[in-house]
C-alpha cells in the first residue's frame, strides 16, 4: 500500500529513555557510582507526564513498557504506516535540566551513545539529534565535537528554555559549532524552568504550559535575531518542534515594525526580521495550529510568505492527530513535496550527504 506520506522525512520522533539506570553501560565508574549511590533514575520532564494523553497517543501506548520505548514500536507505529523514508530522533530526556552541568554533560553523552547503539545501529532509516548540556556552552560544544564525525547525527538538540536565552553572548559558542558542522539547532518543548514559564508567573495547568510555549519559542527567535546570530552565522538554521505556525505572521509583522523603530539599538540586525525568519527558521508540522477552516491554511502560509518553512513530522508517540492524517488539512498541493522531503533536505546538509 502506498500512503500519501510515502518516502517522507519525519523530523520529530521521540525515543523514550526509561532513565539514568539504562545509561549505566555508557557511563564511567565515577558517574555510575553517583547514579547508583544517589538513586538517580527517572528524569522525565514535567512538561511531558507519562500519563497525560498528549504524551502518548492512545493507540501508540503499548500494553507493557514505555510509549516510544523500542525500535520495534517505532517501526510498527511511525515508519511503516507513514512509509517514512528517514526519521530524526529527538530524545526528550531531562538531563540538560540538571543544575550540575558535569552530571548533565555525562548523561547527555551517555544518551547520545545509547541512541547510536540502541536505535541508529538497528535501523538504517534513522538519524538523530545530539542532546547537549545547553547550560554549559563549553561542555555542549565538546559534545557536538565528539559526535560530529558520525554523520547519522544531523542536528543539535536543546531545551526550548534553559538557563539563558539562546541568542545571549554566553551561548555563542554553541551557535558557532552548530553552523561549522552543518547542524541546525532544534528547540523542543522542554524547559529547565530556571525562570517562570510566562511573564505572569507560574500557570496552573499543563495545557497552559504547552500553549504558552509558542511564546517561549518566539522569545528564543527574537533573542537570536536581536543578538545578531544570523548576521554572524549566515548558514545557521533553527528548527522549532511542536511550535505550530499560527503565531508566525504576527511575529513577523511585529518584529519588522519594531525593528524599523528600534533598529538603532541592534544595528547588527542588517535585514528585516521577517526576511531573517524566512531564511533561517523551520517548523515541524505537528501541531500545525492553523485556522479551523482548512481553506484558510493557504492564506496563513501566504502571510508567512515562504514555502520553505514547514517540515513533516508525526511527533511520535505524542497525540497530535489520529490514523495517518499527519499532513495538515488544506495544505496546497504544490507544497506537498516541499513538506514531505524537499524542505528537510534543504535544512539538514548532513542528511543530504547520505540520502539520495
Amino acid at each position: 500500500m502506498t500512503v500519501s506520506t510515502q518516502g517522507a522525512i519525519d523530523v520529530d520522533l521521540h525515543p523514550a529513555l526509561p532513565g539514568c539506570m539504562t545509561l549505566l553501560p555508557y557511563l564511567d565508574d565515577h558517574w555510575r557510582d553517583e547514579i547508583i549511590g544517589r538513586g538517580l533514575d527517572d528524569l522525565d520532564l514535567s512538561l511531558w507526564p507519562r500519563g497525560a494523553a498528549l504524551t502518548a497517543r492512545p493507540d501508540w501506548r503499548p500494553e507493557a513498557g514505555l510509549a516510544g520505548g523500542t525500535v520495534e514500536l517505532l517501526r510498527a507505529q511511525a515508519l511503516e504506516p507513514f512509509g517514512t523514508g528517514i526519521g530524526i530522533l529527538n530524545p526528550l530526556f531531562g538531563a540538560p535540566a540538571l543544575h550540575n552541568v558535569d552530571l548533565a554533560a555525562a548523561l547527555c553523552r551517555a544518551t547520545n551513545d545509547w541512541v547510536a547503539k540502541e536505535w541508529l545501529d538497528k535501523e538504517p532509516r534513522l538519524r538523530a539529534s545530539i542532546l547537549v548540556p545547553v547550560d554549559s556552552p563549553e561542555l555542549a560544544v565538546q559534545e557536538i565535537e565528539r559526535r560530529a564525525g558520525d554523520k547519522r547525527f544531523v542536528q543539535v538538540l536543546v531545551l526550548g528554555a534553559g538557563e539563558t536565552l539562546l541568542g545571549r553572548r554566553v551561548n555563542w559558542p554553541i551557535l558557532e559549532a552548530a553552523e561549522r558542522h552543518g547542524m541546525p539547532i532544534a528547540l523542543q518543548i522542554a524547559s529547565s524552568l530556571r525562570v517562570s514559564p510566562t511573564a505572569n508567573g507560574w500557570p496552573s495547568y499543563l495545557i497552559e504550559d504547552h500553549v504558552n510555549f509558542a511564546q517561549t519559542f518566539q522569545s528564543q527567535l527574537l533573542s537570536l535575531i536581536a543578538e545578531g546570530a544570523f548576521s554572524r552565522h549566515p548558514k545557521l538554521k533553527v528548527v522549532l518542534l511542536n511550535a505550530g505556525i499560527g503565531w508566525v505572521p504576527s511575529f513577523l509583522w511585529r518584529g519588522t515594525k519594531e525593528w524599523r523603530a528600534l533598529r538603532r539599538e541592534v544595528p547588527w540586525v542588517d535585514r528585516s526580521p521577517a526576511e531573517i525568519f524566512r531564511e533561517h527558521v523551520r517548523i515541524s508540522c505537528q501541531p500545525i495550529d492553523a485556522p479551523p477552516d482548512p481553506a484558510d491554511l493557504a492564506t496563513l502560509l501566504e502571510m508567512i510568505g515562504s514555502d520553505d518553512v514547514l517540515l513533516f513530522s508525526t511527533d511520535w508517540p505524542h497525540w497530535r492527530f489520529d490514523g495517518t492524517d499527519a499532513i495538515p488539512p488544506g495544505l496546497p498541493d504544490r507544497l506537498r513535496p516541499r513538506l514531505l522531503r524537499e524542505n528537510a533536505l534543504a535544512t539538514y546538509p548532513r542528511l543530504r550527504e547520505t540520502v539520495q
Partner: protein
Amino acid sequence: MSATTLPRPEVPAQARLRVIDCDVHPAMRSGAELDRWLSPRWQQHRKEYGLRLRQPFTSTYPYPKAAPALSRRDSWPPTGGPPGSDLAFMREQHLDFHDIEYGMLQPLSVRGMDERVQGFAEAVSTAVNQWQHDDWTSKDKRLKGTIAVAGEDAKAAVKEIERWAGHPDFVQVSMVTRALEPLGRSRYWPIYEAAEHYGLPLGLHTLGTSGHSVAGGGWPSFYYEEHQAVAMSLSAMVASFIMEGVPERFPALKMVIVEGGFGWVPSLGWRMDSHYHALRSEVPHLRRKPSEYLKSNFWFTTQPVEEPEKPEHLRKLIDWIGWDRLLFATDYPHWDSDDPRYAFKCQMSEAEKRGIFAGNAKAVYGL
C-alpha cells in the same frame, strides 16, 4: 510598500466619525504630586522609601526606553512637566485635534499594584484614582477614569472598586498584566466577582514588574525584545483567564486587553483548541472550546496596529478575530502611539470604521 491609508475627505459635522480612544496616559508632574492624596503617614513613607518594585532601579527600567519619558518628542507641554501632565495641552494636541469623543485614562507612571509594601500599594491606588477624578475626569467630561487596584490583596482591591463603583466618571477596573501570578488564578477572583457585579470591565493595560522575565525563555538583552514580548505576556495572561475558567465562572465579565496589538489573538485560539483535544480532562470546568471564550469575553485595543506586508491580510486577520472585538486606541503620548487617520493600512467600510473607532467601545463600556 503597497499600503493604502484611510481616505480623509472633509465631511459635514453630523456625519463625521468621532473617535473613542481606549488608551490615553495622564502623568503626574512629579512623584511628589501624589502627596496631595496621601495621608501624612504615607507621605513620609514616600519621601523616605519611595516605590519599591521588583526591579533593580528606583526610578528607571533595566531596559532603557526608546525615548525620554517613553514619549513622542512633540508631546512635552510648553508649560513644563512631562508629556501627558498638562490637560490644556492634551486637549489641544490630542482630544480636540483628533475629535476624541471619549478617552479612557490609563495611569502608568505611578501605580499601586506593583508596590511591594501592601499598605502603600493600597494608599497609592486610592490616590491615583482620586487624582484621575480631581485633575482629569471632573475637568473634562470626555475623559473616563480607570479604577486602579492593588490587586495582590484581593480584599483591598474590592474595597477600592466599591469606593468608585457607580461613579459615572469611572468605567473600568485596572490591574497590572504582569502580576505575581497569572491573573486567572483564584486569588484574584474576588476582584472579578466585584467587577462583574458592578458591571465594570477589566481594562488590562500591559504593565508590571512582576520579577518574572518577559517570556519563558529568560531575560532578553534589548528593549527591542522586551517591547515585542509584551504581546507574548498578554497571550499567556489571556490563556490563564480562560483555562482557569474565569469566563465560565463570571460569564458577564468583560476583559479589555490594552496595548498588546491583536495579531496574536487568533493563533492563541487555534493553539488552545489543538491542545484541548488531548488535554481536556485537565480542565473539565471548561464547557466550551477555549477559543470560544475569546469571542465572548475578550476585547482588544488596536495599538500598535499590525502592519502585514499585504493590506488584505490585515482584513483577514480581523475577520478571524471578529470586527466587533477591536477597540481603537492611540496610546497618546507615547512614542509608538497610533494616529487614527493613518493607523490602519487597509480599506474599511463606513460600518467597519464606526465599529472599531467608536461603536465597539460604546457597547463594551455602555457609553
